[in-house]
């Protein structure tokens, strides 16, 4: 069900984890979220989780907080690249 915003996010995540690329990915995720509004569904708090142990990125993060983490955390950027950018 990919849309244009999602494809732009994937492209941004395929770049090396420079501050510029991280900021771009964060912005692309915000644009995707504006269209999809997963985090805006009433009565829910969508949260990306994993069963990783002692990672350099959070193992539970609200979807609405993903852009901020993408912008400041290279390890999270790399993890999102694996999940989304390489999809």
């Amino acid at each position, binding site marked *: 069900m990919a*849309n244009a915003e999602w494809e732009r996010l994937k492209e941004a995540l395929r770049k090396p984890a420079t501050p510029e690329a991280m900021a771009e990915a964060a912005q692309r995720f915000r644009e995707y979220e504006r269209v999809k509004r*997963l985090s805006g569904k009433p*009565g829910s708090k969508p*949260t990306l989780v994993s069963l*990783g*142990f002692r990672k350099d990125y959070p193992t539970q993060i609200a979807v609405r907080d993903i852009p901020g983490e993408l912008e400041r955390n290279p390890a999270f950027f790399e*993890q999102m690249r694996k999940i989304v950018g390489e*999809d």
Partner: protein
Amino acid sequence: MLALPLHDLPTRSASGFLIRYVVPRTGPPQLVGPLDNKALFSNLAFGDVVIGVGHGEPNRFYGYRNQMLLDVSSIPDVRSKVVVLISCQTARQLGPALIKAGAESYIGFLEDLVWVMDADSAANPWADKFAGSAMMPVVHCVNTILDGKVMADAFAVMTTEMLGNAAVEEDDLIASCLRFNAKNASLLGNPMARVKARPKVAFPLPPPPLFPFMP
């Protein structure tokens, strides 16, 4: 043996689905919540199947409040058992170590097991529609094993259902997580291994009480 911690959102989400849809088919030991600790895990007979939810890394698997339950350097007696670890990255080292120690077969993941859950569903995680697309394939995998079918069938049920859910999922993030999990799922050991079939349970049973969520 079932190991089902409930101490944070991801363990509560994954364990919640197994508590709802798998626990009623199994007998003790069922290490749920605080019972999922090192002392009990190490001292109980395993039966013919070990199903564990928990945080993980390549060489270790953790229980309630991240007590280390399994480590490549101290594998308990897993001879002739099948092992399913709903965890992260244990297929890299721990899974092969379990097979080397005599486990008949193992299902786990090479990378992080990732999914989107609804944090507002922590009180009844089995009703979480976001998490269901990722966790019901795991439930069906485990129940296929408990039906007495071979591990290869259970593995195919899980990965096929994850990819099928991804194909119809409206949210791209959830779909990417499903494909990532399916791609990194791993079956080691004897794919034809099977365990004694357990009686089927007519669902839905009334939801069980859960330990309160205290983040």
